């Protein structure tokens, strides 16, 4: 070996090491979770778990809903943010003070606190509004005519105002559906091409109604083998982060409710899509698509005090369910859904009011009921097997004049 060879070999590790460059400073700046520290959480919250909130990546409003008689004051607050991001409290005059985790924040008068999370790179930042608000006592009667709707912040799809009992963790009071997930899989769709859309003048009395339609999710949906999206409508929240990996988990159903539902009355109309297809888009002969509408009442805390939140995979089967009412369907002997050619749901192409009584499996505990220990789901789907990405493209369920009566 001569000098040049030795030099070349000696330089080699230097070349190799220089390939991977130093990691860039992080650009992410999320509040991932937020918690309030209270000596006696039960003075404020119906559930101990309500003191900690996981914050979805697309949320920038965080609302803690507390008991109506709780006296809101300064509460030590801890944020979990993206690694190496820094947190500031931004005052009205836009001046910002660094926020130290665990320091007390004055939430009195239901004021909104502005937090700014600045990424490690100091370029990207996100602003969050955090507040603690009294939850208004809800009525034992809910109604909705679906007259109040508007485009979402991105202008891509419609959202509907829901009864005030359906206020969610971001302080919004809207019906949820799969539209945010559809936006990811078919970004070019116009607002009226989404699975859940309003129909002005389409209701039984000539006012607006809601249309749920089973849609093709396009090439992107095909890639992830979620070829259809059933139109849906429910109370809860939609976890858009999971929309592609686990669409069933993305659909988080149910919100706490302090009354015992007795029956759901709703006007329905159904236009069935012509070809029922399985998950791989193969037509299934001898099977027709069916709509679904249900009321589920479930215990929202397990024996260990953990939160129970139903999702698309167990909305009708979770053992925490105490009461259930649903449009009639055929079932197999083992209780599983039976696809058939002669459905018994009774929804036709003509408007008709349906009464769906809630049947209870166990006695409700009045104390638990009063302290919001049960959650209510009111759910609709244009394809009852949509959760398994089966159904007929073009199936349409029209909904209007919803009423929930409680005991």
């Amino acid at each position: 070996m001569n000098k040049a060879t030795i030099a070349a070999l000696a330089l080699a590790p230097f070349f190799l090491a220089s390939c991977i460059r130093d990691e860039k400073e992080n650009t992410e700046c999320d509040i991932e979770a937020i918690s309030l520290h209270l000596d006696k959480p039960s003075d404020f919250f119906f559930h101990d778990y309500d003191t900690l909130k996981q914050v979805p990546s697309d949320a920038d409003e965080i609302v803690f809903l507390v008991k109506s008689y709780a006296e809101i004051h300064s509460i030590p607050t801890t944020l979990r943010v993206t690694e190496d991001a820094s947190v500031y409290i931004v005052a009205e005059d836009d001046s910002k003070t660094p926020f130290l985790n665990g320091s007390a924040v004055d939430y009195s008068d239901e004021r909104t606190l502005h937090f700014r999370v600045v990424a490690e790179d100091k370029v990207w930042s996100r602003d969050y509004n955090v507040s603690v608000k009294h939850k208004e006592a809800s009525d034992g009667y809910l109604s909705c005519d679906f007259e109040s709707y508007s485009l979402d912040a991105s202008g891509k799809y419609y959202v509907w105002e829901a009864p005030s009992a359906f206020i969610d963790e971001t302080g919004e009071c809207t019906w949820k559906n799969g539209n945010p997930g559809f936006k990811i899989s078919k970004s070019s769709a116009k607002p009226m091409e989404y699975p859940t859309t309003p129909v002005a003048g389409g209701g039984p009395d000539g006012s607006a109604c809601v249309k749920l339609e089973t849609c093709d999710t396009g090439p992107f949906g095909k890639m992830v083998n979620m070829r259809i999206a059933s139109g849906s409508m429910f109370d809860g929240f939609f976890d858009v982060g999971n929309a592609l990996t686990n669409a069933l988990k993305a659909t988080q159903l149910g919100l706490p409710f302090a009354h015992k539902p007795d029956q759901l009355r709703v006007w329905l109309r159904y236009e069935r899509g012509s070809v029922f297809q399985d998950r791989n888009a193969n037509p299934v002969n001898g099977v027709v698509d069916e709509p679904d509408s249900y009321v589920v009442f479930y215990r929202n805390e397990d024996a260990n005090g953990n939160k129970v939140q139903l999702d698309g995979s167990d909305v009708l089967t979770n053992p925490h369910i105490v009461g259930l009412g649903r449009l009639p369907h055929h079932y197999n002997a083992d209780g599983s859904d039976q696809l058939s050619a002669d459905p018994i749901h009774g929804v036709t192409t003509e408007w008709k009011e349906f009464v769906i009584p809630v049947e209870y499996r166990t006695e409700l505990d009045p104390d638990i009921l009063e302290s919001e220990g049960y959650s209510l789901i009111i759910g609709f789907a244009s394809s009852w097997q949509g959760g398994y990405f089966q159904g007929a493209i073009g199936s349409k369920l029209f909904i209007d004049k919803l009423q929930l009566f409680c005991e």
Partner: protein
Amino acid sequence: MMKHTILAFLLLLAPCSFVLAKQKAPMNENRDAWEKWGPIKGLTSGGFIARLGYVIGGTTPLPLPAEIRKISTFSPEGGIGIGIDGYRMFSKRWGISLGAHFFWEGFHTRADVKNYYVWLEQEGEITKGYFTGTNVTSTDMWGVSIPLLATCRISPRWNLNFGPYMSFYFHQTFSGEVYDNDEGIGYLRENTPTGTKILMTRDNPTPYPNNFADNMIPFSAGIEVGFDWKALRHLNVFGLIDWGLTDIWDRKFEAISFRMYPIYGTIGLAYRY
């Protein structure tokens, strides 16, 4: 990817530098050796060299963008080069050569990326954003390179060649997909680094659009450097590297935020006449 390119380059360099070092020794080769290993019809005549080689390398950004955190796998695709060069010596040491090298080259790589700008798009449906997780890329190209080289005979049995080349591609593919990395981290921030976080896993890998390659430029230009070692009277051992200096992507194409250059080396045997 870079590692291997550089390794290949060093492999080429090592014998050359060995020879260069040798050259510093007092020159005592006699004219017989120059004639024995020289062009068949005399020191200032010409001839042909038919080459068959193994091609390895990558199409790579230079330097590697900081978004690439780790290269987990790299495997060549294709890897065949076949070509012919005609050469003419003007003096004992200097000449030129012109050739046509047909190649099939490419690679497959799997890398951990952080905050890496991607497009997931097909038939007009676009999802753009910043991805963190595992990014898999494959590319292969069929084509022909036309090198116009100066050739320097540094000793009776060693030639060094260098000069510009142009490559024309008959067929180009570029595909890829993203999913979670070994730590289970895989997500896209939609549109901006603070956008909605969309999880992506290996059960549901999300591919690049399948028309990406339409945005590749069907030619490139660069510098070729190589050596020939005359092992037998008609057989050369050769090595060369084609270092592309032009971006393979159409400048108007926004899905790849950096320029990428084809850098491929060939090692093989040649028949010399």
